[in-house]
């Protein structure tokens, strides 16, 4: 059996999780909106970290577990490594006025 190298937890998700250390340039096959798609990774994605299945405009929700885990802080392209450099949290923000949703 071929070892599964990525996982998409919920069909609504716009990110996938790496189950192995993935390298930039690798092509990953995942189902996106019920269609099998080839996604070329733009950066390295370490074990347990995330990459984008869809283009996510700045300010739009990042979705994992079928739920919102934050918002894109810049444009995220298909195959981009997704982490704290391009996602911001909506909660517990004592650093901004209003603070949270």
């Amino acid at each position, binding site marked *: *059996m071929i070892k*599964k190298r990525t*996982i998409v*937890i919920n069909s609504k998700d716009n990110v996938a*999780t*790496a*189950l192995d250390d993935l390298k930039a340039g690798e092509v990953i096959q995942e189902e996106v909106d019920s269609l099998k798609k080839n996604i070329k990774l733009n950066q390295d994605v*370490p*074990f*347990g*970290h*995330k990459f984008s299945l869809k283009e996510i405009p700045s300010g739009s929700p*990042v979705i*994992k*577990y079928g*739920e*919102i*885990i*934050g918002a894109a802080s810049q444009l995220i392209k298909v195959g981009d490594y*997704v*982490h*704290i450099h391009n*996602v*911001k*949290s*909506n*909660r*517990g*923000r*004592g*650093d*901004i006025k209003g*603070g*949270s949703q």
Partner: protein
Amino acid sequence: MSFLGFPREDGSVGVRNHIGIISVVVCANDVTLKIAQQVEGAVAFLHDQGCTQTLVDLDQVTRTLVNLGKNSNLAGVLLVSLGCESVLIDEIREKIAVSGKPVKTLGIQKTGGMLPAIMEGSRIAQEMVIKASTIRRETFDDSYLSIGVKCGASDTTSGLISNPAAGAAFDIIYDHGGTCIFGETTEFLGAEHILMRRAATPEVKKRIEEIVTRMEKRAKMMGVDIRGGQPTTGNIKGGLTTIEEKSLGAIVKAGTRPIHDVYEYGNKITKKGLFIMDSPGREPEFLTGVAAAGVQIIIFSTGIGAPQGFPFVPVLKITGNPKTERYLSDHIDKFIKLSEEGENTIAQAGEEIYEEIKAIASGKKTKAEVLGYGQFSNIFTIGPVI
């Protein structure tokens, strides 16, 4: 379905038969620890509280110490004080004694300082251990199990593998009529709507919202982004990007059954079902909170690898991270391997965890117990030291 436990006077069942040497104030920790080290069968509970705090916190510390003393894994309790602290040792003794177990007190100032206190305390503990050693394990129905769950040093494998596996075990315990307790309110942020849907009554739903709002307010009061504190630096390294992502992965450790009630920190929970105890996510405070609630065993799901146990509650360490299983095998009791058939893996892992809980309940030791990792506990407080 049954396990072998120690019968207690108040009708509860212990899975361990320790004598608890409980410090009531930070200033008594040194003597408390020495007594526990001297007497085989005794365990120390140490913490940083008990004096020069606001009344709200002194109440919380007192309540927590009383309920720790009542935990069914303790056959007897020796309370150790300095003598001039704010908490009242006699009040704590009287409230623990209601459970029917032997409770004694020791004051360091009154006894003449550290050396005579260690001697007197060790003699009291020695007597208690000998008396407790005559109590025999008996067969009890699984509904007598009271189990806590915690996740710590989380990474993405926690939310994918070990937390859902712990949740599957929780569902089984619930279905057998046992008690299941979870908390770590900070890690409800961004996932509270899912928990609220599972509330057994509209009041419970409201309470869940209340404790989340209160915890978020507390974090925001400091005027900084929660990130870095939650998720922790280690969580971020492990692939968790936001508190929402951590929370969504964290809440699955509590399974899928209805949530019956929400308790404030340090309260005893004697009912059957699934309950929330308002608590922070940090290990020393959380583990103490559920021990006070009355759990006999804690399932601890970890990603990167958290070694902590608790002085008198066995902690079952599980992970789904193959690297952690390899590098930290001295601390991991159970590894859950994710196969292609993810769903089956989780359900089967839940069954296996349940069987392991019953083995531990009947006397099997956990790795943290054998190594004695978990001497440094604490009690969650709200206000400042004054």
